[in-house]
């Protein structure tokens, strides 16, 4: 993973070869069977292989012990975990490594997650927790309760504790990127089903109303991706800070908002079969329902952005809008 660009460098797209490699890797390993088998826990083999490939510390400088590469590379990995419904905390551990890096820390081995509040994702499989004081100790938290989220991924509820700065932002962006990937995949699964499935003697995709559902899904997935890329651009241009927080707010808001309509229309279009646990559609739609709730709902983040704008007044809106995406030396 020797990317020529450095962490926080001024790159605006992920490395093409990396994107391609990760895509093929997850496509091969994150199969419906393995996603299904991992419910309630995680796909340990897939996680180990991802660590092996260096995916859980991409975007962390090699000097810090990371895999190197850019933040756009990191976001591409997160997006891919969504697109492929990876049933392992690859994105969470990667996010934790990036949070640590913001504070000058090296990535820690194993399933290490940063605390951001009461709910700790992947609780049942977590090895270590990244503390606000910068230490990453083996798990020793008092768990109030445990459960599984919409997607069958385990979580624990702990007493709320002090957080590392920007942990919220980076984890929210992580989920936004994963959602963008999942939204794209749901859109594609729906197109495919509409072409293949026949009813009353013709493919259901010939129905105008379903065509409109599909167009909207495709556009919403693109918008979610755009909002995520805006935030990654800002992170990459200026590092974490208040501009980054607002760009993350926009990203989590846009991705989260798209979930309700995309999931509704995808399930509507797939009919009864898509509502069963034997159809793969639900590996994505359930993750979307889970992810929009994680690390602040779309309402929470929209309110963060809205309050900031109201506080600064109407004149602050246009400069904010035109700050995204940040300008570039030459158009790509």
């Amino acid at each position: 993973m020797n990317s020529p660009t450095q962490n926080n460098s001024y790159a605006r797209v992920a490395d093409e070869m990396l994107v391609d490699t990760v895509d093929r890797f997850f496509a091969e390993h994150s199969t419906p069977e393995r996603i299904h088998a991992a419910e309630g826990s995680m796909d340990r083999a897939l996680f180990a292989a991802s660590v092996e490939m260096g995916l859980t510390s991409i975007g962390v400088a090699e000097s810090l012990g990371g895999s190197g590469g850019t933040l756009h590379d990191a976001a591409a990995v997160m997006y891919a975990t969504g697109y492929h419904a990876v049933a392992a905390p690859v994105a969470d551990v990667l996010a934790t490594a990036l949070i640590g890096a913001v504070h000058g820390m090296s990535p820690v081995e194993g399933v290490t997650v940063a605390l951001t509040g009461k709910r700790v994702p992947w609780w049942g499989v977590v090895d270590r927790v990244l503390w606000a004081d910068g230490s990453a100790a083996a798990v020793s938290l008092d768990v109030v309760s445990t459960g599984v989220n919409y997607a069958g991924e385990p979580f624990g509820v702990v007493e709320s504790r002090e957080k590392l700065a920007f942990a919220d932002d980076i984890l929210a962006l992580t989920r936004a990127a994963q959602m963008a990937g999942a939204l794209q995949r749901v859109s594609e699964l729906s197109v495919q089903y509409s072409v293949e499935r026949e009813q009353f003697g013709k493919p259901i995709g010939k129905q105008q109303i379903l065509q409109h559902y599909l167009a909207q899904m495709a556009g919403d997935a693109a918008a979610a991706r755009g909002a995520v890329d805006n935030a990654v651009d800002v992170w990459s241009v200026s590092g974490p800070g208040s501009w980054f927080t607002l760009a993350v707010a926009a990203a989590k808001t846009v991705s989260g908002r798209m979930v309700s309509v995309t999931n509704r229309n995808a399930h509507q279009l797939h009919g009864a079969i898509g509502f069963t646990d034997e159809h793969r559609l639900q590996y994505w739609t359930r993750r979307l329902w889970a992810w929009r709730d994680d690390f602040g709902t779309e309402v929470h983040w929209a309110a963060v952005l809205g309050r900031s704008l109201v506080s600064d007044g109407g004149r602050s809106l246009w400069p904010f809008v035109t700050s995204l995406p940040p300008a570039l030396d030459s158009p790509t």
Partner: protein
Amino acid sequence: MPRLTFPAASLPHSTEQLRSDIRSFLEAEIAEGTFVPRCDTWLSQHDPSFSRKLGAAGFLGLAWPTEYGGHGRTPLDRFVVVEELLAHGAPIAAHWVSDRQSGPSILKHGTEQAKRELVPKMAAGECYFSIGMSEPDAGSDLAAIRSTATKTEGGWLLNGTKVWTSQAHNNHYFIVLVRTTPMSDGGVGAEGAGGAGGAKHRGMSQFIMDLKAPGVQIRPIRLLSGHHHFNEVVMEDAFVPEHFLLGSEGNGWDQVIGELAFERSGPERYLSTFPLLVALIDAVRTEHGTELLRGPSTEAAAAIGQLAARLTALRRLCISVAVALSNGKEPVTEAAMVKDMGTQLEGEIGEVARQLVPPGTNPIFDALVEDAILSTPGFTLRGGTNEILRGIVARHLGVR
């Protein structure tokens, strides 16, 4: 699998000084009271003196060659100026069409004489154009137009009726699409109205028609808001000189289609009500204050925040399309998608505004809301209905 493709793109740093210049210019004009920010100004606010000011300050014809009065800059420079004008609600309807499409069209297809005679005045903000495309009963089916041009000494005689010609009553010219070969020729009749072939599209040509010429009659088409932007233009043996034939005879359809992606992808497709969103933020601020306990509710703040968030996402997609266009690509589907999403968003702003700030709170704000709501039905009709746009996307996705 076919997807929508929006390559990562940003505006270049080289546009930033220009943005700063036009923003200062506009803030100064607002401060002087030259204009009050309004919604949907690119259609409705026709102000020749403001257009001339913009021309004089070098903000029009930005991407046109300097030899024709342009400024030799890039389409992305124009993008920046246009979005600033829209966001500030400036009165830009006079030069809008000439700057967006008539100028580029004449530069691309026009005779040298037409270029010399018209383009410098367009860049100066002194010469305004309208669009002459739709006809009665043709509706969304542009291939069904019936207006004709027949050769005459030194030029052409045009006959027929155009509708939805915005600002024809205030502008100097329109570029009009007519048939130079009658519809019944060339076996077109055999394919008929339902025919799938391109035969109906053949034999069309574009002309630059002087809207003050004898034989041209302009009648208002008033909107439900009472506003008069649109017109019916009737041509009865109206004369167009030879050098105002635009492009090759018979090539009109292709020329028109080529303009569509440009017409559909601009920031005017999501910024029409932006000034209202600015006013909404201030109205909420005035009503609730900014202190934590007295500030807007989570729900009210979120309603504003989600609009702003979606704007930033759309802007990125819009820039991606603009960059692709400026690189010579034809992102027709992506442009349609942005217009579909953008026009829905700009329509939502009016609804959110009246929900957060009850009518009767502030008369000036109410007027902005009313203007937005009365204009909103047009957003999703003009330039291709959203149903048609989604059909374009569905076709691209392979289901249609």
